[in-house]
């Protein structure tokens, strides 16, 4: 076993040597991971957003939205991939379906909660002034729901990127391919890829946090300041929105 053979520092040194020698390979796999995760996130958004916004706008199906979200979060990523290995076999489709399913719950729960929770008096005023329902959704509810919705998207990205290396066991490619293939790459390769995956996940989260700050409407920031609350909600708040009610009990 590698850790027995070399000292602690040596193992990390080796992994950095691996990075130096295989930079283009790692970059290539990183791009593949980004493409895979991005595509899965995109599909999850396209499938979930309209549905969740619509439910939230109508204030309907809160039980269902939260139940789907909770059901989703009880699904182990590895187990999902395994089940789809049984159903769809090895390949891109399997991985894609599994990652999309992983990505949906936070988007669903947060988008629903955010739109459903928009101040009803604000919506009443909008309607009373003669805004059409579509206008209310796009000009009032979505801007006001944006921070919490975006927190859900961040969480979803976190889940998807977190699961993407696992997808390698089903032929998903990317950096996970190296991590699960110690026989070919050695432990220095595994460690190098692991460090890159971790860095990628952290980088993406940092960028999304900046983006979230940028797209949060100024008026909401002013409101939060006036109330002494924080403006930008983080991944942990998104997790709170997903917390289970004892609905299935």
């Amino acid at each position: 076993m590698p850790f027995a053979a070399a000292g602690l520092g040596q193992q990390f040194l080796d992994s950095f040597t691996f990075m130096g020698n295989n930079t283009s390979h790692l970059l290539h796999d990183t791009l593949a991971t980004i493409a895979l995760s991005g595509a899965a996130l995109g599909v999850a958004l396209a499938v979930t957003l309209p549905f969740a916004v619509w439910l939230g706008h109508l204030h309907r199906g809160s039980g269902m939205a939260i139940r789907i979200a909770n059901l989703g979060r009880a699904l182990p990523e590895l187990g999902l991939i395994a089940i789809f290995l049984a159903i769809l076999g090895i390949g891109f489709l399997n991985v894609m379906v599994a990652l999309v399913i992983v990505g949906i719950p936070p988007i669903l729960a947060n988008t629903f909660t955010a739109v459903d929770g928009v101040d009803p008096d604000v919506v009443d005023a909008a309607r009373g002034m003669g805004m059409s329902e579509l206008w209310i959704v796009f000009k009032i509810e979505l801007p006001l729901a944006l921070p919490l919705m975006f927190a859900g998207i961040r969480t979803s990205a976190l889940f998807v990127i977190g699961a993407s290396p696992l997808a390698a066991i089903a032929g998903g490619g990317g950096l996970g391919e190296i991590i699960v293939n110690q026989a070919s790459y050695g432990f220095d390769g595994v460690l190098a890829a692991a460090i890159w995956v971790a860095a990628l996940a952290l980088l993406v989260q940092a960028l999304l946090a900046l983006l979230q700050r940028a797209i949060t409407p100024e008026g909401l920031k002013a409101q939060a300041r006036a109330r002494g609350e924080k403006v930008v909600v983080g991944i942990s708040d998104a997790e709170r929105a997903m917390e289970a009610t004892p609905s299935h009990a």
Partner: protein
Amino acid sequence: MQTEDDTAQSSSPRQHARAAELEFKNVSKRYPGADKPALRDLSFKVPAGEICVLVGPSGCGKTTAMRMVNRMIDITEGDILLDGKSVRGRKPAELRREIGYVIQQIGLFPHLSIGDNIATVPRLLGWDRKRISARVDELLELISLPAETRDRYPAEVSGGQRQRVGVARALAADPPLMLMDEPFGAIDPITREHLQNEFLRLQEALRKTVVFVTHDIDEAIKMGDRIAIMREGGVLVQYDTPDRILADPADEFVARFVGLDRGLKRLALSKLSDLSLDDADSVRDGTPAHGQANPDRVVFVDGQSRPVGRLGRDREPEPIGPVGNPDTSLRDALSLIMSDDNRPLVVVDADGAVAGLARLDVIAGALASHNGRDAPAEARS
């Protein structure tokens, strides 16, 4: 009179404000699943340019009645006519753009600047940029907010200012009808009074038809040209001017609702300018007064006839106390008189010169003469 000048000034924004006549015709409302109707056979007419206040205890259906006008709530039976035309056939969104809408919680859009909030309906109506911008400036001036406020966000102004912005936003497209649901309900008493006066001043100039919901009878008396008093179960009990409702409550319920002090409340509706004043014996330059028959009538004045002192009951000169002016309500005048040993109140005119004296029995007589005029068929004790 000076008030005419005032009016001409503040009405500058729009001289020919449109106003619509509003009529409820046998309107009933039953919410799905409710066993009793929320409104029963409601009929009344609000003449163009008047403020009609819907007042009554909580749950009596005021909000329901108001929200049926702009079709935020569907009418179950009957009809509501705006300038003779039914609202039932109108597209709700279009109808609502023609009706100003103010709610207690205001509902300003927190992500839009004050200016953009005010511009909401003009944008929906497709006005061009220049016109919208000019209108926003005009409205900010109308509600006496500094022009810089237009770029602030709702969270960055005070509660009273937010409420004014809510009114301005409703006025933006110059609607012929305004619906206001407890617009000043959630505000401290001092700011509320300020906003009430400000709105009355605006209304003086704009002359909109207004449906104003409150559960506070004092606010109703102050704001309303007409008051519709409703009771539990959505029944209209009395629809009349404030003075007549106070002078002649339709039944026990109304009498209790307006309160035992309704006589005093009525006094609040009249001003000293409605009263015939006694002449005062003005004494200039502190010349000692001798041989006056009634010391209560003696007022020492300066060169401009402004009161500086009075003669006490002990015939010793004393400095002048509080004085009334033509706008002082009879209720306040009464209070001042009673806290001054029932001596007549010195009343000054707009220039501060002594105009006369208001006597306790004259004020009491005014109340009686109102009764005589307004309730000829008086049948109660």
